[in-house]
Structures are given as C-alpha cells and as structure tokens.
C-alpha cells in the first residue's frame, strides 16, 4: 500500500507496459482520493504546527539577528555551540535532570503504593482514589497559587504546622538550596494520582488465582510483590516513566508563576530557558537551538522506550 511498491518502479523498457503502470497508479490514486480528502483537514494542521514547526526550528537554529529589527544572518552551528556554552542553559539542563528524576521516582513509587492499596473497589477506596486524583484536574497555575501560600515564610501553612519542629526555617521558595525541591513537591502532589490510574489498570492483569496460590505456598506480601506483581507491571512502569519524563520537561507553569527561574537560576528549567531566550531576549536563533537539542533528547528517549516495548512483545 505504499508508493514504493514494485509496480511503481520504472523497470519496463518498452513504452506500453510503462503506460500500463502509470495507468494503474492513476487508478489507484483516484480511488484513494476520498481518503485524502478526509485526511486533508488534519494534515493541514499537522503540517503547519508540527512538521512545519519542526522544520522552522531546524532552520531558525542556523540563523541569527543582532537586534529584533536587524536582518537575519546565517551562522551555521553557532547558535548550538552558544547554547551549549551558556551556563544558563547547562544549568537549566542540570536542574531539569534533577527535577525529572526527583519527581518521577517519588511520584511513581507513591502511585504504586496508592494503586496497591486501592485496587479493591468499595466506597472508601473510590473516595480515596478521587481525593488522590483531584490535583490532576487543577491547572498548574492554580496549584502554584495554593502552594505559594503553603511555602510562605513564617505565616504559611508549612511553617505554621511543621516548621515549628525545625530549628531553622528556610525561605522555601527564596532559598536557592531548597527552591527546586519545593517546586518538585508540587509536581509530585499533582502527578502521583495520575500515574496511580495506570497502575490500577495494570494491576487488573494480575491473575487473582496466582496470588491465592502464592499465598497458600507461603509467599508473604513482599514475595508476591517482588515475584508476581512487579513483573506483571513492567510495561506500566516503562510507560509511566516516559510520561513522567515528558511531564518534567513540559510542565513549567509553576516556574513562571512562583519563581521565574530564581533564586539565582536554581529553578530554571529547559522550557523556561527557551521561553526567556525567545520572548525576553528576542533571540529566536538560540531559543530554536535549545528547542532542537531538547526535542532530539526527548525523541531518542521515547524511540528507545518504544523499541524496548516492541522487543518485549515480540521477544521470547
């Protein structure tokens, strides 16, 4: 069904068969026309905002303007090397890595705990699931507004209730040493209930009779988790990990609302850096170079995980 089918290759030497091939292709293209028309609306928007955008990022990364009004100038890979040499970018990458690992592991671990505890359906577990899922539905901006008060020095919720137990109270969002961890807490709070859903779905595949049999054989909760449940949940883990990492790179609204990347760049993440370059410094070249690097990293990561998943399904 692809264009490169053998029939389309110009192997014939005489004119008559070639004409025949051409005719057959025309007939098939004609027959395909309704499908193309149905796909056209979607393809127009995909072409403009996904593939066209990719192409423009690629081209824009090669050009630069001195000022917003100046004409563009071809600079080759200069933008890429400038971005890689920019401590603000490398700092944002390091922050983002810490942020990704530091939010993915706790939120996935909590999600697993929640799912294991709430896999039975009764009124209480449904209510608890709903409570844990609520943060998923609220905008990150609203979550930020709430947590801004939680982290407020002295009078905020955290200091008011727990801070009294600590000898020294940090200014949670104002201290470069703790600000990143503080915004990580919001992300964990917001995402754990979301990942819980996938573990709940995955747990349904664990056969009850196998669990019963293992129990009768004397396998304790730890043994059952380690040897029956976790192996069964492997694909879910992989899937959720990919989503958690994508989220870590794309959810930056709290940085915009709460810290603006500060104090002293301690909470600047990659997408925030891209935004700053494009909107605050009008440096589309550098913003595009940073976008390109991030896209390349994310795409190879997802491609790798898809391959692992495909291998697992096809393998022994």
């Amino acid at each position, binding site marked *: 069904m*692809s*264009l490169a089918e053998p029939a389309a290759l110009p192997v014939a030497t005489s004119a008559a068969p070639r004409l025949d091939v051409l005719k057959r292709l025309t007939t098939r293209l004609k027959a395909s026309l*309704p*499908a193309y028309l149905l796909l056209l609306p*979607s393809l*127009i*928007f*995909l072409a*403009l*905002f996904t593939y*066209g*955008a*990719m192409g423009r*990022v690629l081209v*824009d990364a090669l050009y630069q303007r001195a000022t917003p009004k100046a004409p563009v100038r071809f600079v080759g890979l200069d933008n890429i090397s400038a971005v890689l040499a920019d401590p603000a970018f490398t700092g944002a990458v390091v922050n983002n890595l810490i942020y990704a690992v530091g939010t993915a592991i706790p939120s996935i671990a*909590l999600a697993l*705990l*929640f799912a*294991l*505890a*709430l896999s039975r359906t*009764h009124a*209480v577990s449904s209510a*608890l699931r709903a*409570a844990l899922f*609520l*943060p*998923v539905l*609220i905008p990150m*901006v*609203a*979550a*930020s*507004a*709430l*947590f*801004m*008060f939680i982290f407020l020095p002295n*009078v905020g*919720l955290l200091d008011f209730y727990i801070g009294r137990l600590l000898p020294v109270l940090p200014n949670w969002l104002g201290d470069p040493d703790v600000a990143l961890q503080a915004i990580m807490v919001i992300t964990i709070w917001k995402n754990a209930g*979301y990942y819980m*859903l*996938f573990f709940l779905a995955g747990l349904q595949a664990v056969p*009850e009779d196998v*669990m019963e049999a*293992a*129990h009768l054989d004397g396998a*304790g909760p730890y043994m059952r988790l380690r040897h029956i449940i976790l192996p069964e949940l492997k694909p879910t883990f992989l*899937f959720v990990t990919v989503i958690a990492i994508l989220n870590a790179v794309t959810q*930056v*609204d709290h940085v*915009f*609302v709460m810290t603006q990347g500060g104090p002293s760049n301690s909470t600047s993440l990659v*997408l925030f850096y*891209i935004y700053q370059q494009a909107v605050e410094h009008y440096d589309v070249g550098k913003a595009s170079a940073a*976008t390109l690097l991030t*896209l390349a990293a*994310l*795409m190879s990561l*997802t491609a790798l995980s898809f391959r692992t998943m495909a291998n697992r399904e096809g393998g022994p």
Partner: protein
Amino acid sequence: MKLMERLYKDAPLATRGEITPKLGFLLTVLLAIVWLIPFLWMVVATLRPASDGINAMAELMPSLKPTLDNIRDAWEIGDFPRYTLNTTIICAGILLVQFVTITLAGFAFARLAFVGKTLIFYLFLMQLMLVPVLLIVPNLSLVARLGLYDTLTGVMMPFFASAFGTFLMRQAFEAIPTELEDTALIDGASLLQRIRHIYVPLSMPSFSAFAIISVTSHWNDFLWPLMVINSPDKRPLTVGLSVFTKTAEGTQAWGTIAAGTLMVIAPLLVTFLIFQKRFISSFVTSGIK
C-alpha cells in the same frame, strides 16, 4: 480495628490475615488526607474574614464567622466571568474542530484503503512523540504571520488536529461491524452520510472520552495562551489567575487569592465529582493529558 476489618471485607483472601497490606492502606489514607489539605485550606481561607489577621491565615480550622468578602473582592479585582468565557470559547472551539478532523481522519484510517496509508499513519504517530509544547517558538511566529497574534483563534489553532483523537476514533470505527454500513450502501448513502448516521452515533463513548481529555488539558493550558494573548480582556482563566495572584500577593491578600483560585478550579472539579467514573476511565484509555 473494627473499621479496618470492615474495609477489608472484600479484600482478596490472600491479604486478609496480613499486616503489610493494612499498613499500606493506612499510609494511603494518611497521604490522601495530606493530598486534600491544599483544597481544604483554599475553602477555609476563602471564607475567613480579613479581621482574623495574617497570622490566622494558615489555620485549617474554619473561622466561626465565615464571610463572602473574599469572593466579592476577587470578583472585583479579576475579571473572572470574562476569563471563564474566554476559556470556555477556547475549549469549545478546539473541541468542535477536533471532532470534525478526528472523525474524518479516523474513518479514513479505519475503513479506507489508499496509496501511502502506512506513511501517513506514521506521520500521525510521530506527532504523539513530538511534544507540541516545545514547539511554542516557531508556532508563535506562525500564528503572528497568520495575523492571529492576540486572538483566541490563535490560541486554538495548533490543537485543531489531534493524532491521539484520530487513533481513538480509528479504534472505535474499526469495532463497528461493516454489515451496518452495507445496508446504508444499498440505500445509496454517500460516504459522509454513512459517517454521520452510522459511525458517529455508534461511537459516542469514544467521543465523550476524548472530550473529557481535550477539555481538561486545554482548560489548564497556560504557557501557550500566555504567549499568544496580549490584551487583558482575552485572557483565559489560567493567565488571568496568574496576573490576579501577582496583584493580590503584593497586598498579602491571601484570602482573596484563595477565593480566585477556588473560582478557577471549581467548574472542572464539580464536573469531575459528578462524572467521576467516566473521567477516570477516559484518563486511563488515553494515557495522554
């Protein structure tokens, strides 16, 4: 302990006598309470009179003389009806166009044979991996060139096609028996008539699942509208709330901030509490926000 036993009545036999699952459950109950604290604080602070003073703001115990002053203040400072209207227009506009694009494309992939099908299918599949949020810079310049900067259409446009929605509809359409269509073919129904009268009505659950995912994610969008919108009267709820928070933060009006936040998140939360089951199953089938 009586309560624990009752909760564990329908637990699988394997776990009834064991302590570890019970501890896990207990921990989850505690964490669920912690998870609700920000919401609880929001409601309590919204109803707390300013006369209680800043030092009482963190109290989770509700004030004995609740007031609606904070809601009135928030209503006066931020143009919440306008923000809500803008967000509703954005979400509804995106969803309506998406319904058309994903129905047509989903049908083509589910039922039609055409030259280049595999290639085009991969074009759609790759879009899922491309993380559109990262493409804000080129898309902003495109929207500006199309003359759509500072318009709600500009906010909506990048989302008019949805690869995820197309796959969802393809799956739904494939599950519909072809016999149903054959009868309509004999009656001389055109392609679009068959889609409209056979495929669409039989795929309503998929449409509603997609609607939930689409509306939730665009209701919560912030960065993209922040970049596209310049005029205050075109701000959606998220951008409006961030500006409002900045204003009120300076005056330490935390009760007002809580009230504004409540107004922003209430519509979606109430909808969720009503259609809980449907929301959760939609999120599971999607895997994408």
